[in-house]
């Protein structure tokens, strides 16, 4: 077995930079397949630009914190690894925050409190725990880049859908509705569109994500009907730990009642 080359995602050799990159981008896309990091996915996708900015900020933090954690993986004792990871991640988040305040003030204002909250994004902590703490610096760095860009693509697309339906714009360019940039007859047809503004409000985020997860559930059941492995697919949110704990609490309570 040892002479055999271990196959990674999409037929690449496992743990090479390219394999890690495409694994994060497609095979284990954090938003669409693993379904983790849903708080920022809901909060910042009111426009494609916001999604893109948030995604790139997360990618930056994810790639660098993965590399640093991989470099320190033999130095950090496993009992204090969680606080150590948090400090590393929080340092990079502070770095991003200061850079954005200096060079992209308008984006920083639009994203607001969600930039420092990258610290508690479960994608970053999850990758540190599941990958970077067990692998070398280079694959961990590319794992971060792949996962980060996978997240960026997914939330930019969600942002684009919400912006397009809710305001008739794409990347702040008016396409549907009044003042459309499309000329001629097509333009006059498009200008009759009434934007459904609920989609750029809070409720729209919940609706779009609900449909996205429903679509992924359908894809998942189709794949498993064909006999493919669907164990990687998440069940809808990073809340599986919470759900398991809540189930345990209820089970304990019922066991307590029966004992009485």
């Amino acid at each position, binding site marked *: 077995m040892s002479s055999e080359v271990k196959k990674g995602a999409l037929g690449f050799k496992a743990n090479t930079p390219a394999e890690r990159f495409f694994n994060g981008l497609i095979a284990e896309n954090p938003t669409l397949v693993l379904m983790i990091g849903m708080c920022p996915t809901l909060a910042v996708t009111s426009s494609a630009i916001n999604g893109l900015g948030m995604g790139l900020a997360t990618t930056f933090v994810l790639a660098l914190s993965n590399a640093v954690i991989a470099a320190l993986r033999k130095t950090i004792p496993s009992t204090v690894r969680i606080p150590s990871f948090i400090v590393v991640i929080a340092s990079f988040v502070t770095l991003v925050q200061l850079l954005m305040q200096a060079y992209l003030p308008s984006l920083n204002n639009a994203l607001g409190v969600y930039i420092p909250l990258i610290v508690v994004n479960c994608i970053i902590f999850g990758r540190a725990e599941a990958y970077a703490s067990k692998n070398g610096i280079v694959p961990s760095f590319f794992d971060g880049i792949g996962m980060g860009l996978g997240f960026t693509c997914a939330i930019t697309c969600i942002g684009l859908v919400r912006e397009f339906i809710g305001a008739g714009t794409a990347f702040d360019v008016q396409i549907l509705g009044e003042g459309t940039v499309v000329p001629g007859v097509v333009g006059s047809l498009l200008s009759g569109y009434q934007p459904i503004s609920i989609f750029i409000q809070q*409720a729209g985020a919940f609706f779009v994500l609900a449909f996205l997860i429903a679509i992924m559930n359908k894809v998942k059941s189709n794949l498993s009907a064909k006999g493919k492995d669907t164990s990687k697919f998440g069940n809808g949110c990073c809340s599986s730990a919470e759900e398991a704990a809540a189930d345990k609490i209820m089970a304990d309570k019922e066991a307590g009642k029966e004992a009485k």
Partner: protein
Amino acid sequence: MGETIVSLIGLMITASLVNNVVLSQFLGLCPFLGVSKKTDTALGMGAACIFVITMASLVCSIIYKFILNPLDLSYLQTIVFILVIAMLVQFVEMVLKKYVVSLYQALGVYLPLITTNCAVLGVALNNVTDGYSILESTVCGFATAVGFTIAIVILAGLREKMEYNDIPAPFKGMPMVLLTSGLMAIAFTGFSALK
């Protein structure tokens, strides 16, 4: 004095209903979606959140006012706050276990889950951004957590009823919960008239 109380009540209404932490700011979504299967557990989670978020807002705002701000270290707030919150949750758990056993039995199981709740850090950071005093921060923290409790208990009640409904297969579970939350978010926008 009278004016302060009126402004604090206004702050409480804004923080709990108008800017509801889950439905309009999307903070603390994980426990909101995860622990809302039963009203019992939802209430317990809400109570634990009220306790921790109020304490965390108080402690973080004291640290900001007396250590970070005077020493010009406010850029360290994210790192300091997250460590303080993680420590505080551990500390509260230990103190309750040793001295207030009845409260520990009611809230203890929820405490480890709260460290990962982004609402705690979000409220602490928002208090600094909004320039609240220590009293205002604590009140705001308390009211935010009350808002969280209101939302999670309503959702849990709806989910208990929904269990008997016939839902299309792909929408079973999380998508249906999200759709319900979306409808709740629409309902809560009604409170913005109170501002």
